C-alpha cells in the first residue's frame, strides 16, 4: 500500500506510544501482531528482522532469569537449593519487555523502506524544527560513516601484517584502546568539516528553505489516519474495560 510518509510516521508513533503505555503481555502481543501485519501491508524489506528477533529471544531468556533470581515475587516454577530460577513474574516481565522491543523494532521498520530525503521532508512538514531535522539527518549519515571508519582502521592494521585473532587478549585490548582515540578524533574532524561546509553553503542564513520533493496526502492517507484514530480509540477503551 502506497501511503504518504507522514501517515507512516504517525502510525509508527501511535503504535510505539501504545507500547510504552501498556505493559501487559497480551496487549503488547496484539500490538506486535498489528505491526507485523503492517510490515507486510507496506511491503517493507525485512532482511535484518529475523536476526534481530533471534537476539531478542536471547534477551528474553536473560531477562526471565534475572527477574526470577533477583526479584522475589510470583510463584516459583523452578528452583535449585532454595534459589528461584524461574518464577511466574519473571516470565511475565521478560515477556513484557521483549514484546515491547519487538513492537518498537517492527514499528520502526515500517519507516526503513522510506527514502531518507522523504523522511526529512516529512519531519519538517510535521512542524519539527529544521535544526533538529538536520541533526537527525546528519546523525543518520554518521552511523555508516563511523562503521566505515572502524572498518578502514581494522583493515589498515591487518594490511600491516597484524592478525588480531592470533594476538594475546591483553595486547588486543591495547590495540583497540590505541585506535579508539584516532578514530574518535577522525570522526570529530569530519563533523567539524561538515559543520564548516554547512556554514559555507549558507545554512540557516534565511529563515526558510525550499524543498525539491513535494509530499502530498491522498485519500488513502486520510482513510488510514481515520482507521488509526478509530482503532486507537477502540484499543484504549477495550484496555480500560478489560485490564
Amino acid at each position, binding site marked *: 500500500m502506497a501511503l504518504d510518509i507522514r501517515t507512516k510516521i504517525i502510525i509508527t508513533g501511535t503504535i510505539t506510544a501504545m507500547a510504552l503505555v501498556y505493559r501487559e503481555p497480551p496487549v503488547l502481543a496484539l500490538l506486535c501482531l498489528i505491526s507485523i501485519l503492517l510490515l507486510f501491508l507496506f511491503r517493507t524489506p525485512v532482511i535484518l528482522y529475523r536476526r534481530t528477533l533471534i537476539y531478542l529471544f536471547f534477551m528474553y531468556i536473560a531477562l526471565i532469569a534475572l527477574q526470577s533470581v533477583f526479584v522475589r515475587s510470583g510463584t516459583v516454577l523452578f528452583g535449585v537449593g532454595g534459589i528461584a530460577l524461574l518464577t511466574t513474574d519473571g516470565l511475565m516481565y521478560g515477556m513484557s519487555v521483549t514484546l515491547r522491543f519487538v513492537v518498537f523494532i517492527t514499528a520502526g521498520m515500517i519507516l526503513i523502506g522510506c527514502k531518507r530525503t522523504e523522511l526529512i521532508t516529512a519531519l519538517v512538514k510535521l512542524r519539527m524544527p529544521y535544526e533538529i531535522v538536520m541533526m537527525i539527518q546528519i546523525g543518520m549519515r554518521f552511523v555508516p560513516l563511523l562503521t566505515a571508519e572502524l572498518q*578502514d582502521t581494522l583493515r589498515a592494521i*591487518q*594490511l600491516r*601484517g*597484524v*592478525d588480531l585473532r592470533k594476538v594475546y587478549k591483553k595486547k588486543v585490548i591495547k590495540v583497540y584502546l590505541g585506535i579508539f582515540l584516532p*578514530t574518535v578524533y*577522525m570522526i570529530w574532524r569530519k563533523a567539524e568539516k561538515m559543520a564548516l561546509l554547512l556554514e559555507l553553503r549558507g545554512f540557516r542564513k534565511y529563515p526558510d528553505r525550499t524543498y525539491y520533493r513535494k509530499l502530498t496526502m491522498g485519500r488513502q492517507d486520510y482513510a488510514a489516519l481515520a482507521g488509526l484514530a478509530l482503532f486507537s480509540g477502540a484499543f484504549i477503551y477495550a484496555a480500560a474495560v478489560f485490564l
Partner: protein
Amino acid sequence: MLFYELSDVGFTYPGRKEQAIRNVSLQIGQGEKIALTGLNGSGKSTLAKLMMGILRAQQGAVNLEGKPVGSYTLPQIGSRVGYISQNPNIMFFNTSVLEEISFGLRWRGKSRAETGEIAKRYLRNFGLWEERERMPFNLSEGQKQLVAILSMLVLEPAYLILDEPTKSLDTLRKKQLLKTLEEVAQRGKGIIMISHDREFVQRFAGRKIRMKNGEVVADGT
C-alpha cells in the same frame, strides 16, 4: 615461481551493471618494477584491491605465490605485500607519526631500540623527523602520503603496491621517493605503481601495463 598470476579476472561492483575489471590476465614475477597506468576509472585501483584480497574477483583467479588470494587472510597478504592506498587518511590509526611508522615493526617482534633506529632513519631521509610527534591526520597531504608510504616501506615486504604515490608530493620529495624505491628494488623487492605521473613512471618502471575500461590494453617495457 610467479609472485602474482591473474587469469581471466572479472569484477563488478555491487549495484553496477558494467564490469570494473574485464578478463584481465597478468603474470608478475618476483622483484619486477611495474607501472600500472590508465585514465581515471580504468580499473587500476580496483585491480590493486583484487590483488590485495580487499575485493574478491567474481570471475577468474588471482593467485599469490601459487595459491589463490582468497586462501590467505588479510594479515597474511599484508605481511607479503605492502599496499598504500591513494587516500592516506584511511591508513592511519596512531596518535603520532613515529608510532605510525613503528607500529608494524613492533608487531614483528623488533626491539624498541631497533624500531626507533629504523623509524628515525626513514623519517630523517624524508625530512619528517621534526614532525615525529604530530598526529598523522594533521600533516599536509604530501606529508601524509609520505608517512603512509614509509609505514609500509619500513616493513620491507616482498612486493609493494603503491596507488598514486606521487599525487601530492613536491618535486624534491618525488626525487627522494624515486631514489628510495630504486634502493628497495635493488634489494630484490617488487614494486607495482599505479600512477598518472608520466615522468615518474618513465624514470622508474621497467614494465608498463596500461588499462582502459577495465581491460589491459598494453603490457610491455
